[in-house]
């Protein structure tokens, strides 16, 4: 036993003596990120990381933000809350970053909010949940539209079609569950009755059972909140069972991948999404059009089809850049103030107007209702 202990000492000492800290020079801005680059939410984290890296390289190549270079530290959370927590700890304590961008999922963000508040580092989240900015926390901002906005946008559209009975089908992930909660909470306000509330596991391979249950109700429309492959399977299952009801998806599937996977079954599906996926279709008078087309071009010339998720990272990064530019410093508190004072910033998600009581700064009009026709997005007027 004694020998065992000795070996342990040596090994532990070896481990603990590994140094791992270096100080940032004064004229660099240290941005940290923790994104779900692999794992179940990789379709969020992957374009987000690519966007950040591409623009940071670009900014540095052009001499930085008014001479301030950006130093970028990144960790992959694999969408695990525990990892997110560890990495944010690492970003704050070990890497000592000036500002944090991330996480990709609501769960990852919610997990670190207390930590970030205590560490007094500005954080811009790329996740959907309304819980991130309500109630407002001093150091925490976000760029994507909330799940509540998505639910409202869908209900507005449903109501305009004269539909009052709706079936809900959602997965077991954080995004799905909080979207479902928003739908249930908002339905009465729009005079809509939820007649079915079905669930599935996000790694399930067949949802015909749940869809068959919906078919047996008197629902007039179906809403599916989710992301990844499950919504595509649900879409196919609905058509397979010969259900002709209008199907609404969430902004979680606002990428070409969904259309590719669901194929013909996706025809006629409506969903609320940021302007990015329909950039070409917007009128030239739209103030966002120029920004959207430029980002789309930048991204697609390097990586392939653009998704709205990378756009959220674009918005977050340039909000930080603007804040740094306006104070000419890398001070955490001043960057925070700068982000909070963002006004009239035209991003990919919409036009942001932040305030001490609104750490998102987007209105419902920044969401567009799109419909899939002939394998492509179209704007619903």
């Amino acid at each position, binding site marked *: 036993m004694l020998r065992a202990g000795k070996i342990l000492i040596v090994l532990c000492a070896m481990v603990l003596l590994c140094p791992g800290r270096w100080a940032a020079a004064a004229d660099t801005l240290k941005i940290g990120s923790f994104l779900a680059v692999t794992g179940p939410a990789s379709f969020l984290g992957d374009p987000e990381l690519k966007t950040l890296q591409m623009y940071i390289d670009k900014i540095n190549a052009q001499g930085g933000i008014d001479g301030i270079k950006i130093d970028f530290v990144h960790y992959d959370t694999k969408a695990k809350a525990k990892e997110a927590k560890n990495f944010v700890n690492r970003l704050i304590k070990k890497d000592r970053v000036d500002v944090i961008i991330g996480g990709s999922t609501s769960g990852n963000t919610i997990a670190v909010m207390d930590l970030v508040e205590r560490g007094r580092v500005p954080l811009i989240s790329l996740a959907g949940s309304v819980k991130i900015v309500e109630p407002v926390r001093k150091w925490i901002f976000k760029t994507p539209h909330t799940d509540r906005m998505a639910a409202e946008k869908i209900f507005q559209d449903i109501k305009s079609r004269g539909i009052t009975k709706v079936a809900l089908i959602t997965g077991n992930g954080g995004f799905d569950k909080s979207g479902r909660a928003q739908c249930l909470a908002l339905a009465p306000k729009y005079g809509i009755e939820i007649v079915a509330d079905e669930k599935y*596991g996000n*790694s399930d391979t*067949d949802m015909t*059972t749940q869809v068959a*249950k919906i078919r047996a109700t008197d629902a007039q429309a179906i809403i599916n909140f989710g992301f990844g492959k499950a919504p595509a399977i649900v879409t196919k299952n609905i*058509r*397979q069972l010969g259900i002709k009801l209008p199907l609404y998806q969430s902004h979680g599937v606002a990428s070409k*991948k969904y259309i590719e996977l669901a194929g013909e079954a996706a025809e006629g599906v409506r969903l609320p999404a940021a302007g990015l996926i329909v950039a070409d279709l917007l009128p030239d008078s739209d103030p966002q059009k120029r920004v959207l087309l430029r980002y789309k071009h930048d991204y697609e010339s390097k990586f392939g089809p653009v998704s709205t998720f990378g756009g959220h990272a674009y918005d977050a990064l340039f909000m930080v850049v603007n804040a740094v530019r306006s104070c000419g410093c890398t001070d955490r508190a001043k960057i925070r103030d700068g982000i909070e004072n963002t006004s009239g910033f035209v991003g990919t998600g919409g036009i942001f107007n932040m305030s001490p009581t609104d750490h998102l700064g987007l209105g419902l009009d920044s969401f567009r209702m799109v419909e899939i026709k002939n394998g492509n997005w179209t704007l619903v007027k």
Partner: protein
Amino acid sequence: MFDQLLQFIISGITVGSVYALVGLGFTIIYNASDVVNFAQGEFVMIGAMSAIFLYGAGIPYPLALAAAVAITVVVGLMLEKFAVEPAKNASVVTTIIITIGASIFLRGAALLVWGKDIYGLPPFTKDVPISIGSATLLPQNIYVMLGTAVAVLLVRYFFDRTMTGKAIMACSCNRRAASLVGINVNRMLLIAYGVSALLGAVAGILVTPITYTSYDAGVMLGLKGFCAAILGGMGNSMGAVAGGLLLGIIESLGAGIISSGYKDAIAFVVILGVLFFRPGGLLGRADSERV
């Protein structure tokens, strides 16, 4: 209500067919080498992913499928040769960790080769739903069921009627005795892994047109396949098939009749219930321990 039930059962059988094939793969390897191969689900993923990429590269569909099966079999053989064979005398838990390590390794390799996107495979024939009463199913569902049935019958034939199959069975009964009567035990183990990988690839190819796949899709299928094998009684190949179908149907009925949110929990409650009353699975014998 009857129409509903019919739909639930059709869904259950489709999903259950895949569990059955994966469970059968578990059983074959377990019988031949006493190893529970937790990388079994990865065979499914590799089969499907290879097919998708070969087809995407312009190779004719049937040929792409055949090549994908071949690739998966090679992976299975390599798994046996480089991971399982060197650890021949390891304990049960050790081999479990080795196969878990292998499954992580294969997932990591898939991530590097194919990226993290989700992919689909075109259905074998056009997706026109077929109605039975008010229940519907896709032609691909029928291919899944037929494919599973054929695969199970072939495996049955292989182990009951061919010399090689019988030799593998002999290894599973008593390895030393088998080698004494002139069976090349190592070769037989290799064949068992090949057959098992082949079944995984077939399952992946059959089901991907319906379910899509990605580099991490193997984990859940492996787990469900293990459940199928245990439910039927470890080591009993027909038990694994029955276990797989039963598991699919329980999940589907649980989701349809009780609660879709708790359907997996319901399935596990049933499995626990079965084990408490039949500690050797449905078709297994309760072993008597050697003292």
